[in-house]
């Protein structure tokens, strides 16, 4: 009898201690594509979230609670992201953030708005996510239309092209990136000579590249992920297509793998990007170096987005009057934070709701690595322009 009571008492006590222990942690689920075609970026973001998590926890966590991140694999499919988020909302997670691709972010945004739970878009770039007048969706990364602002100013100031050829992959990201470039080009008086979409994973780009060659554009602009980007440049080199500038619309062109896989063909290729390890925002360089020490390469801008996202969440949760959805929402609206990714402020402007606007920058592959070249205030190296013809290289 006494043994039974002792057992019951210890259960009682351990229950309370476990509960008390549980009260000290804040579990946050994050949907990410950990398998599937976007697994690489999902991994970069996961690693970056973890770095931020360790930093925040070592300084006491959020309101005294340690953060525990639980990553859920969406396999890059919007329906799975959606059911992950539905489950998180069922479990009463106060705020949702995460996901990489535009289509998954779009699907989650719709759910979050429906179920009135705030959602922070971290990487999804397609414009229409914040053009729907959603009250609960906040986007920290610039939308596709603003990806290339730095790049366009580089074109206007240095390259001064009269024509452009645009090649893009048939995804959400590629299609909206291409549309935005067409709009920008028309505004700046640059003629769009070729606009071709291709399906990801294509083996032979030579037919459309030959078409581009025949059109003789001043700039070749490509919106691709890394392997297509590498293959495109390699086949451009093979066909000896000369132009004034080869440019990428971010993503595939902005990560080290592009240089590894395209080798000499990647030299002097320029890309629009949102962030580089050389920007002067506070925390940027430290984050980049920390990531490089752990994982041997600099993080892409997606890593910086993920890292900063967790800091934004921390800031919002600490400023919110309570963790009820509407209070968190007001805290989001009044955000004014400098992060490693850049300044974050959610405004309603030009048809976008709760969107953060930032300068974008331009990188160029010089001597086998990405250097920031534009705008000058962020530059780590001088841009190389004009570029030599293929025949005259090396």
């Amino acid at each position: 009898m006494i043994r039974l009571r002792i057992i019951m008492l210890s259960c009682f006590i351990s229950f309370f201690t476990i509960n008390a222990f549980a009260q000290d942690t804040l579990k946050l689920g994050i949907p990410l594509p950990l398998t599937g075609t976007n697994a690489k970026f999902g991994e970069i973001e996961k690693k970056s979230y973890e770095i931020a998590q360790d930093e925040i926890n070592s300084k006491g966590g959020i309101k005294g609670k340690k953060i525990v991140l639980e990553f859920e694999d969406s396999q890059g499919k919007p329906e799975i992201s959606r059911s992950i988020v539905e489950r998180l909302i069922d479990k009463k997670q106060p705020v949702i953030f995460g996901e990489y691709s535009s289509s998954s972010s779009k699907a989650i945004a719709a759910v979050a708005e429906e179920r009135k739970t705030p959602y922070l878009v971290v990487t999804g770039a397609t414009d229409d996510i914040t053009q729907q007048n959603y009250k609960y969706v906040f986007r920290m990364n610039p939308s596709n239309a603003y990806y290339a602002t730095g790049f366009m100013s580089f074109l206007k100031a240095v390259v001064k092209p009269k024509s452009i050829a645009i090649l893009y992959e048939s995804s959400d990201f590629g299609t909206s990136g291409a549309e935005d470039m067409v709009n920008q080009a028309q505004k700046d008086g640059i003629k769009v000579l070729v606009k071709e979409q291709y399906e990801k994973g294509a083996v032979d780009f030579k037919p459309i590249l030959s078409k581009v060659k025949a059109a003789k554009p001043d700039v070749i602009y490509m919106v691709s992920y890394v392997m297509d980007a590498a293959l495109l440049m390699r086949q451009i080199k093979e066909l000896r297509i000369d132009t004034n500038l080869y440019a990428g619309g971010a993503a595939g062109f902005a990560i080290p793998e592009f240089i590894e896989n395209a080798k000499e063909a990647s030299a002097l290729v320029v890309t629009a990007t949102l962030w580089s390890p050389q920007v002067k925002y506070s925390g940027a360089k430290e984050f980049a170096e920390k990531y490089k020490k752990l994982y041997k390469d600099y993080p892409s801008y997606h890593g910086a987005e993920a890292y900063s996202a967790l800091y934004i969440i921390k800031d919002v949760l600490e400023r919110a009057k309570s963790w009820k959805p509407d209070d968190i929402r007001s805290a989001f609206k009044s955000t004014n934070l400098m992060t490693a990714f850049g300044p974050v402020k959610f405004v309603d402007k030009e048809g976008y709701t709760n969107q953060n606007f930032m300068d974008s920058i331009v990188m160029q592959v010089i001597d086998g690595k990405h250097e920031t070249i534009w705008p000058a205030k962020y530059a780590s190296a001088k841009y190389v322009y004009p570029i030599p013809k293929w025949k005259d290289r090396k």
Partner: protein
Amino acid sequence: MKKLLPLIIFAILLIVPLMGLSTYVMHILILVLMWSVIGMAWNLLGGYTGQVSFGHAAFFGVGAYTAGILYQHLGISAWWGLPVCIVVLTVLSLIIGFICLRLRGAYFALATLALGEICRVTAENLVDFTRGNLGILIKERTWVEKTWFFYIILLIAAGTYIIIKKVIESKLGYYFVAIREDHDAAESLGIDTTFYKTISLCLSGVLTGMAGVFYMNYMGYIDPSIVFPLYDLSITAVMVVMIGGVATYWGPIIGAIIMVFLAEVIRSLPQIGAAHQTIFGIILICIIIFLPNGIAGGDYLKLWEPIKNRWRNKGTSL
């Protein structure tokens, strides 16, 4: 008792939403019902009429896009897709039938596979019409809670079950099975095989299309890679029926339950989650070798035989 079983199950399903289950479980049940519809539709064409299609994604996707395009371009509720898709999908089935039904066996399977892929790439490229890979997003789904969605898909599933049962038990059903068993013999007996195959295809297509319309309304967001995928839809449809039981009424439903539950359960497991397709593949292989007619196909009795014999006659059998 056996006759009442379907009714009992239907009655139980009717009160499920009132049981206060979490949204997640409701979501799983809705998926099971939707896949049951797709499976039963495929089974009509494949299991009963013997025309194995690897391209059912075409019907599903066109159904989903019918609903989506009505919403996007005409501004009306996507639920209008249900009546409209009957027309659209009949036309599509007639076209597909005209091209493919003259082909036999594996050629038919491949042709449907090709047509499914053609639909997908077409949807991707006709950006002005379908918004390509930007997808169609329904800003406000009809309901936020799952209850009414559940009832609608339950209705569609029950309707499909009844329609198929009635068809198979009628003369049409005999013609279908005759075509499956021996196409030429059926032809020589005076059965207009092309006509009946076409009916089977149209019915199968329309029912799958309705599942597609439902999907558009339920998920609220579609794009070509979501609704026209080769593996995730066409081949999964084949698996659902092959695992569950070809040419049976309950086979596709059992298959749907297994596939959806397995998919969700395996996906959430930490390490093995990524390997869920391997597990499906292995299950498929095992089913083909040991239970070629699926779980409900009655083969398990055959498997049981040698074990039973050894038990009884200790040494006489095997």
